[in-house]
């Protein structure tokens, strides 16, 4: 019998690597992603959708926060 925790777990295809935001690069001095075009911050962009809980961060999982 399948473990009760697994019976309704949400399945998704594993992503191999985190995908870089298109049109942005990481500025290591500033410590943030900025636009390649106008150097505006990704997180200030109206198109940016912040991840909710780490449960939605399916690349790395809640505890791992990346490798």
């Amino acid at each position: 019998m399948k473990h009760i925790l697994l019976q309704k777990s949400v399945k998704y295809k594993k992503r191999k690597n985190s995908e870089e935001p298109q049109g942005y690069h990481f500025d290591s001095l500033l410590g943030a992603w900025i636009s390649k075009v106008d150097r505006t911050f990704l997180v200030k962009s109206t198109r940016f959708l912040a991840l909710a809980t780490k449960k939605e961060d399916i690349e790395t999982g809640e505890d791992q926060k990346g490798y």
Partner: protein
Amino acid sequence: MINPEVLLVSNRFDFSTDFVAVELDRQGVEYIRINRDDLKDYIIEFNPIIPEIVGQYNGYTFNISKRRLKSIYYRAPTFLRDIFQEKLSEEEQLIRTQWAAFVRSLCVFENVKWLNNPVDIYKAEIKPFQLYLANSLGMKVPNTVISNSVIKLNCDFVAIKSIDTAIVSKGEEEGFVYTEIYKKDELEEDRYTSPFFNQQGLLPKLDLRVTVIENKVVAIKIYSDAEIKEDWRRYKNDLKYLVFELPPKIEQLCADIVKSLNLNFGAIDLIFHEDEYYFIEINPTGEWSWLQQNTGYGFDKLIVKSLTNV
């Protein structure tokens, strides 16, 4: 040469840290962000006795010293031991294990303010301990039994949840375990190979996310047009958010829980059910930037205020 007052320990794809960096930059605070996924490209000299770190990365140099450093914003795993990964090269295994050990070694900067210190995060992440502590401080908690069997609790609904975050891997797929709420009669008293929470299911409910930064307590109601009868995280884009005023006693209890865990930051899940506030769990490294985006509340400014007010 960067001589930071604030150190951000994070990961390139942790966008919440971007908010903090942007605000620190705006306020003219000297800071440095170290991403763990970039560490293999750093040149580091770390004297743990002083303690002091001199480093080079991407064309700039930095000196992290206890003379200047005021605070550390820590967004990294605590007990992850990434060893014996057969599919990785020997060098990659060393990169993972030894840089992780380096990050843990930052604990030598013990006289700075941590948001949060990994040693405290480790204990604070233990869900049964959270319930025990919250109850001892006077917060209501759902009736809970940990077992590897289904227990028929004396309530109409039973929440079945993992004791710790459960992500399982199978072939090309992963599976995430959410809390599931069952009607008591739906459950059979079966035994399984590993334990889980059998917890009093609180329905109907109002979900609240309470973000605590030192003494500042900000509650946000999470709701939807349809009644949420399960883990609200399943609803993703259908959720709405509203700043919510907690009774002073509950607000104080939330601050007390965070302080008792020796944390400066905590993300607490509460449920309002039948006129009572129940503590569900706390995440010492809980997300907040999505709440900022959905409510306009300046959590980044609160975090920076905490990091700089030392």
